[in-house]
């Protein structure tokens, strides 16, 4: 098999990941909980941290990208897995009503659709994304982002603005 998956005991590997992240980046928070390395980073540092994860530490799998609307700020979580029991959870908090964060599609190509989904559902703009279109909702005539807390479930409102 051409792909090299990480080896060695889980605890050592998690320590190695944590050290690797700490040495290369100024992290706001970092800890190991169970089999997970949890990182809180500034939004600007996300692409750099994920590059470290993939290129230097060998965490090859991006499981998903998800957003939580905290009414005024957005938490963006990148869930990484090394496919051998270890997980890395990178979280960034973006302030403001119209969040912008750098894309990670050039690091993990699979982020393409996950970022499109986040854009569709929350209106998070991923700067540098090659193809930032909506995944689920209408491309035209629909200006809402349904998973925002400000979007209330209401039939009339949903179809407002449609031709």
């Amino acid at each position, binding site marked *: 098999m051409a*792909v090299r*998956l990480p080896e060695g005991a889980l605890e050592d590997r998690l320590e190695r990941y944590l050290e690797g992240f700490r040495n290369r980046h100024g992290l706001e928070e970092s800890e190991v909980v169970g089999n997970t390395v949890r990182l809180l980073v500034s939004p600007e540092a996300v692409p750099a941290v994920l590059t470290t994860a993939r290129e230097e530490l060998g965490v090859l*799998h991006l499981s998903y990208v998800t957003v939580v*609307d905290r009414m005024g700020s957005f938490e963006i979580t990148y*869930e990484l897995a090394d496919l051998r029991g270890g997980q890395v959870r990178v979280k960034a908090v973006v302030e403001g009503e119209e969040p912008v964060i750098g894309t990670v599609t050039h690091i*993990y190509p699979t982020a393409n659709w996950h970022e499109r989904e986040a854009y569709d559902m929350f209106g998070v703009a991923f700067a540098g994304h090659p193809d930032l279109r909506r995944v689920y909702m209408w491309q035209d005539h629909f200006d809402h982002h349904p*998973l925002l807390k400000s979007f209330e*479930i209401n039939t009339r409102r949903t179809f407002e603005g449609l031709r």
Partner: protein
Amino acid sequence: MLSEERNIESVALSGRETGRLTDPDIRDEFGLETMDMNMGPQHPAMHGLLRLILELDGETVVRCDPVMGYLHRCQEKIAENRMYPAVIPLTDRLDYFANMHNEHGYCLAVEDLLEAEIPPRAEHIRVLMSELMRLASHIPSIGFLLLELGAFTPILYSFRERERIQNIFEAVTGARMMYHYIRIGGVKADLPPGMEDQIWEYIEGLEQRFTRDFVDLIAGNEIFVSRTRDIGKMSPEKALEMGLTGPPLRCTGVDFDVRRDYPYSIYDELDFDVITDDAGDVEASYRVRIGECLQSIRLIKQLLERMPEGEVMGKVGRRVRPPEGEGFSRIESPRGEFAVHIVSDGSDTPYRVHYRDPSFANMQLLQEIVPGHYLPDIMPIMGLIDPVSGGWDK
């Protein structure tokens, strides 16, 4: 043999990398143009409602752009407005060929928040149901692959097996498709009397029939081989880059199974192999699915042998109100890694639920590997990914 000749022919006609005619002069001289075509959303081979915008050069696909959202129900938004236990029947409607797995994943995430303890018998029943569900998903997916290639018999055989597994589910849960069986803290009800013997009898019979009906009939068939070998070929690096999981990843040779590498429930106590194949094409994914069915049979036998007695519901109150925080789970559904991320604000309803559905992530593959193939090769590639409409559209 057949496939080799065909391969040489197709490489001569078109550049496999780009899918375009190799010689632009020929194109200009005869005024050849590419043609845009819609495939779906109402197409029998699209596994639900999927529209592919295809750019064709002759019969070769140059560009493939999947358009989704025809079955989108915004499950995540609905879940935010419901109490925790009331979300479980919604998860059934996500990937409707792997209902038990969705329920299991959601309940594990809530239990992660609650730090609930699950009785051993409930864990065994959950895993038993998951493995039966895997059989009821893998076997029809083999049938669908063959149906789309024009063979009608395997779908009848595979639906015969699925019907029988659904009969078991009906006896256990009361429903044939949307079970609502796995609950937060355990399962809804114990197995009915005599059910363990009935499952054992069915599994014994399936084991005897399996090779005859799904391997001997299909594996060496010349038409099957010529339609699937070297179709949808991808390298393990590519597969990992695309975020594939499940059979599409394992058929490239990457040895990853959530059940073994991120064990949940009682999988770390059970004995099973992770099936991989090196070819990384449609035929390899078929072989991986066959191998996984046999492993599921092995797991079900182990579970029935070691099924403990006792309660099936843990001590979780009727009113589920998890503390503030985040709950995560990651399980192996028939299509790959199904992950749930729940954010709680301490109230009755989840603040945010995120489902990572394997169909959604695996479908990105279409954009990458379909260009360069002939138009009819899309059917076997859909069979490789085996997506489910409810899954990718949430």
